[in-house]
């Protein structure tokens, strides 16, 4: 087999970081070639260069041994390179077929396009109704639309950026079957991921990147998740372990029959949600993004007086009508999914960001004045206790890396001594070291008697730290499953909406 793509000495720098540092490797034709690396390792930059989305500072790309000048995505498409992005670019109110025709380079009548698309769908097992509007589709189906749209261009090379991050386990195995079939029919797939098992299961070769550099390109045949993980990080990460077999008794938090009746077609209505959380327990809410997580979090935070029916109890008192401020004063803490601009202000210093969340605490105030001395020393404690890598508390929050900022935010909330901590996507998009640290911290916190709710799309993370897991699907919450003796098949079914 000859190599279809060859990267030669690719450099690309952004202010403050070298995203690609002398990247060179080859991709063989008709293989599944994974690019593995942590967030920020430079894998997305590299494929964006291949797709003509980003121009490298220097270096060459050879396609079929010929020097290729790829300076725009349409240029890349002409060379047979297509890409399925992590974030979809579909028009919600248009139908599948209309979205497909919008992605075509050549002019083609709609009827002919439908015919062509149908052949592709049947051949590879995409379950799509070409006349449904995108807004009625699940995330998995939307991804299928993106893939079919790429296939309509008869690509030679298909780049997929973290395609599994939005899928249920069931959908993932379907996708993998499709990818394998596509490769058999002549396609070369470049697959980006940071999930080790997936890469071993799916791909033939893997290029491991770290800090913008290529560590090595190897066959996946003789690798297991542990060896691959070590190569990716350069150090060993010990898995966090939740203690099992605890009997929880005292109830702390309860959601009873919570429903919403919004008429906004772009929100998910919650449907009779019941949840019961004990002291010291960690409760995971799993599910694919867009199944009501955002809405549930909004009701828990109560930032906008979101309308709902049902009741929320904290330590036996009804907190339905309590404001964010009042809930925080009752020792409920929150970490939102968005770090910058929600649970932290990027333009403000770390000290100021402490006060952002702690302004209800009287120890940081002298009447209407702010006690900056106390806040600064508190910020110092957070930085020290939670290994936040920063020169000082005067640094602006936006200057910290994702992992460091998340450690700072979670540290801040933990040090406010909450009785209930609600976390949304606590380890999303951060480096493995910080991720392991945060998981361990959460587990230790629960052992001190703090109750924790984690809303996350990352099933592995939930299985690692939670005592119980429920699945949110189209606004309904499944029965909780005990993590100790969990039935993964059942969990997978729940994620696809098959509750019992």
């Amino acid at each position, binding site marked *: 087999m000859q190599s279809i793509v060859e990267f030669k000495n690719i450099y690309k720098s952004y202010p403050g970081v070298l995203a690609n540092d002398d990247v060179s490797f080859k991709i063989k034709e008709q293989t599944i070639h994974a690019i593995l690396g942590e967030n920020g390792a430079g894998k997305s930059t590299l494929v964006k260069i291949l797709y003509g989305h980003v121009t490298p500072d220097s270096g060459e790309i050879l396609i079929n041994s010929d020097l290729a000048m790829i300076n725009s995505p349409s240029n890349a498409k002409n060379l047979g390179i297509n890409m399925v992005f992590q974030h979809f670019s579909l028009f919600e109110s248009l139908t599948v077929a209309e979205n497909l025709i919008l992605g075509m380079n050549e002019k083609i009548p709609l009827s002919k396009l439908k015919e062509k698309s149908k052949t592709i769908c049947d051949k590879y097992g995409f379950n799509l109704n070409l006349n449904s509007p995108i807004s009625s589709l699940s995330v998995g189906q939307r991804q299928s639309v993106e893939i079919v749209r790429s296939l309509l261009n008869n690509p030679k090379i298909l780049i997929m950026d973290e395609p599994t991050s939005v899928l249920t386990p069931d959908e993932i195995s379907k996708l993998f079957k499709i990818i394998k079939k596509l490769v058999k029919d002549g396609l070369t797939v470049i697959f980006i991921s940071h999930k080790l098992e997936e890469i071993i299961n799916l791909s033939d070769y893997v290029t491991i990147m770290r800090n913008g550099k290529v560590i090595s390109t190897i066959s996946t045949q003789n690798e297991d998740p542990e060896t691959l993980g070590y190569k990716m990080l350069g150090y060993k990460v010990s898995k966090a372990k939740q203690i099992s077999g605890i009997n929880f008794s005292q109830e702390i938090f309860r959601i009873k029959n919570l429903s919403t009746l919004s008429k906004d077609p772009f929100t998910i209505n919650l449907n009779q949600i019941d949840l019961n959380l004990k002291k010291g327990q960690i409760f995971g809410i799993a599910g694919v993004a867009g199944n009501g997580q955002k809405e549930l979090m909004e009701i828990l935070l109560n930032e906008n007086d979101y309308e709902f029916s049902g009741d929320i109890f904290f330590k036996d008192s009804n907190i339905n009508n309590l404001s*964010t401020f009042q809930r925080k004063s009752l020792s409920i803490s929150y970490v939102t999914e968005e770090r910058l601009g929600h649970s932290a202000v990027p333009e403000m210093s770390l000290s100021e960001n402490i006060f952002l969340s702690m*302004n209800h605490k009287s120890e940081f105030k002298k009447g209407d004045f702010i006690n*900056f001395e106390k806040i600064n020393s508190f910020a110092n404690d957070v930085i020290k206790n939670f290994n936040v890598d920063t020169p000082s508390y005067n640094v602006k929050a936006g200057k910290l890396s994702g992992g460091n900022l998340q450690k700072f935010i979670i540290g801040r909330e933990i040090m406010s001594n909450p009785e209930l901590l609600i976390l949304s996507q606590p380890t999303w998009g951060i480096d493995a070291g910080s991720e392991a640290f945060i998981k361990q911290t959460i587990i230790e916190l629960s052992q001190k008697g703090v109750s924790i709710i984690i809303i996350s799309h990352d099933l592995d993370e939930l299985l690692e730290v939670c005592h119980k897991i429920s699945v949110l699907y189209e606004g309904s919450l499944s029965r909780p499953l005990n993590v100790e003796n969990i039935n993964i098949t059942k969990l997978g079914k729940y994620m696809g909406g098959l509750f019992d």
Partner: protein
Amino acid sequence: MIRVKLREDYSNLIFYLSPLVAVALTLFFGSFIFLILDLSPIESFKIFFMSPISNSYGISELFVKATPLAIIALGLSYCFKNNIYNIGAEGQLTMGAIFGGGIGLLFNDSTSVFLLPLMILFGAIGGAFWATIPAILKTKFNTNEILTSLMLTYVALFILDYFVVGPWKDPAGYGLPKSMPFPDAGRLPVLFDGLRVHIGAYFAIIICFITYIVYNKTLFGFKLKVSGLSSKASQYAGFKYKNLIFYTFIISGACAGLAGLFEVSGPIGLLYRDISPNYGFTAIIVAFLGRLNPIGIILSSLLIALTYLGAEDAQLFLKIPSAVGFVFQGLVLFFLLGTDFLNKYRVSIE
């Protein structure tokens, strides 16, 4: 194709330096205006910017103009920091003059030392009252405060018009649209005999000092800062945005009303139609040129006040219309917005 991209290395230093760059550009392009008018730029600038403040009278006049600008702009900075665009300060100023001046006319034979403080109080109340209207409309009906506050300016001007041609017209005023003069007890004390600079200047400095403390040391200032930077973070912190809208409108309205009262009970001494040469609008430029920073606002109010004086001298000695002063104010704002934009975004042509 022109491409506009957000800069990742947005500079804070340049943010504070850009007013100087804007002023330099204004002078540079302003010199072309003089050239087109067949005047020597250097001589013209001397007349425009130097001669007005070459004697004690001129310096006093500079403070007379800078005082209302600074007071209004300091008030507006509360709104602008909170991302609320109150551009109706001119109307709030007018309402302050009507309320406070009305007290002066009501007790026009008073000699009490309490008359002036009462007028000042009512001046502030008048301005705050007028600013509450767009605040209510914004919080209850989600109307755009830019439109409502601007439109209310014209309403306020017509109300003043009504009073000075109607019920408050001076019977001994030969039918001119003006009120009778305020009693001496209702006049603002001047700082130096024979000069017009009045104790309003002290108020400007005090308000500047208080504002500095509020912005840097208090919970309220912190709330304004957070809400201005990110409304979501402000909700996360548990701040009530609607309350902040009210407070900032009331503060800025009260400041504008105060400035209006100072004008009529200070240099003018009575109520008539044209009590303000657009101080309320010009103060918007002052606030932004001063980077919404209290000390910056004091400096920028002096600079903009100079354009008022310079325009008068230019009319007198260069025989060019005094509107040239507004041209310079406009240029400063234009270049300030331009430098801010270029500091925030990178523009490239491909």
